[in-house]
């Protein structure tokens, strides 16, 4: 019986090779060529102080955003996991609802708040303070990242906490552990898979975003995503653009490898 039906998946298998695997290969080949012949120029160009600074800035902002999401998100996940019944599912729904709203619009929504004549500055003026430049700063970009991606940190942690066997906590208490010890030695280590998947779900889109810097950061080449966008859409230097993309993929890949190593190590200990 088995072999009669699996043929229905083969057309899709072929399709994935053409439209998922092949494009990645094309980028890779593009990144190593110039005018149709082998060249390292794209990479050479990238490793100059000008562009390296952008890479470092992207990493810095993405790491900061990830850290904030984790520090704020973990306690919230913990609090929600202790809720019960309809209230819990309502809270979860409220947490997920913004994820269904257009990313662009959610980001744009901050402009009337942060702008020079925006809500925040009007408020500052009202209480007699000087205006502050909120929009078009790194802080605004960071805010945009946290705002857009914090549900991606909370939800995986919450789902791990929910699946955790409550008897484990009772057992730990039974064995004489106080609340602090139970949290540090039982709850936290067990929720690590959720933390790890949360970190990757926040870090990845943060480090690769180009919309947030354009809308809230004022459109300078602030992040690596902007570089890529510009090379592909404005300059038309696909080779250089591909080189930057390969570097971006390497950054993401190494982040995922580091995370999975951490995960495995912890699991090995247990």
């Amino acid at each position, binding site marked *: 019986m088995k072999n009669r039906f699996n043929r229905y998946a083969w057309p899709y298998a072929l399709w994935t090779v053409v439209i998922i695997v092949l494009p990645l290969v094309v980028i890779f080949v593009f990144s190593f060529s110039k005018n149709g012949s082998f060249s390292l120029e794209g990479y050479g160009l990238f490793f100059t102080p000008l562009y390296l600074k952008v890479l470092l800035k992207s990493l810095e902002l993405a790491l900061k955003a990830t850290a904030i999401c984790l520090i704020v998100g973990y306690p919230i996940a913990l609090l929600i996991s202790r809720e019960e019944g309809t209230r819990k599912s309502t809270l979860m729904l409220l947490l997920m609802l913004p994820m269904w709203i257009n990313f662009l*619009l959610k980001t*744009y929504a901050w402009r009337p708040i942060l702008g020079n004549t925006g809500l925040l500055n009007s408020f500052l003026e009202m209480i007699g303070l000087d205006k502050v430049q909120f929009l078009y700063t790194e802080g605004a970009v960071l805010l945009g990242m946290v705002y857009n991606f914090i549900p991606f940190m909370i939800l995986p942690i919450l789902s791990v906490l929910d699946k955790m066997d409550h008897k484990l906590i009772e057992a730990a208490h039974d064995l004489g552990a106080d609340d602090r010890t139970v949290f540090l030695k039982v709850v936290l280590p067990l929720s690590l898979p959720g933390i790890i998947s949360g970190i990757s779900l926040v870090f990845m889109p943060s480090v690769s975003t180009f919309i947030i810097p354009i809308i809230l950061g004022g459109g300078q080449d602030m992040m690596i995503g902007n570089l890529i966008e510009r090379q592909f859409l404005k300059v038309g230097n696909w080779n250089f653009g591909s080189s930057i993309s390969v570097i971006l993929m390497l950054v993401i890949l190494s982040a995922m490898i580091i995370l999975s190593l951490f995960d495995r190590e912890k699991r090995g200990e247990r």
Partner: protein
Amino acid sequence: MKKRKLPHWLILLLLIFLYMPILVLITYSFNEGRTGAEWTGFTFKWYAELFRDRNILKAMGYTILIAFIASTVSTVVGTISAWGIKYMGRRTSGILLSINDLPLLNPDLVTAISLMSLYIFLKMTFGFMTLLLSHIMFSIPYVIITVLPVLRRISRHQMEAALDLGAKPVVGLFKIILPQLKQSIISGWLIAFTMSVDDFVISFFTTGSGVSNISIAVFSMARRGINPKINALSSLMFAVVIALLLIINKNRKTRKEDLAIEENILLH
């Protein structure tokens, strides 16, 4: 444990943080003044202007058209492929599903430029077709990960029982297997549709002159500065999302199941 009336202040703070910008936007969409925080009077004029803007109307049309074709094609292809994957060996299906996961795991930007490079490589003209192809490309994986788990739960004895009772394989498929998949196929279609409507990055890189969707239209307005028409558009889209979610919720048996499916998709 004592039962508090309100959730913890930290949760409330987060909810305010999450919803305030959206609420501000909705409020401003009814504000007379063009810019600034000042409330200068209630109006519907931005909505009226929105529906007079030809570019936006055209973009809406493309958005719906692309989303409809892409989600329908993806649902058909994805369901048939999931059926095949169910009967594949563990290793082959493992490899195929990993590739299938790539567009879900890769940042949109990487998927977008990789598709763009492919179209350049194949010397295709950027426009409606490239846009549609891209949307089909990223929609099928969502359909597969929605349909496949349900399909795998259907015992192979179901098909065998149908054959045993005298049904030809085609009859078994339409009378026994597909009806049991109905819910997940509808979910898959809805998810593909939402993803397509919502997409900006991939569309932005793979479309050509004259063809844009809502997100692209919003982006080109937004990068120019504040425009109250965007506020009106956002409010409308927000209303549509909530309406859709309510409809989906009503159609599902329990909210818990619903949340589980959404969670599965979003966190995949």
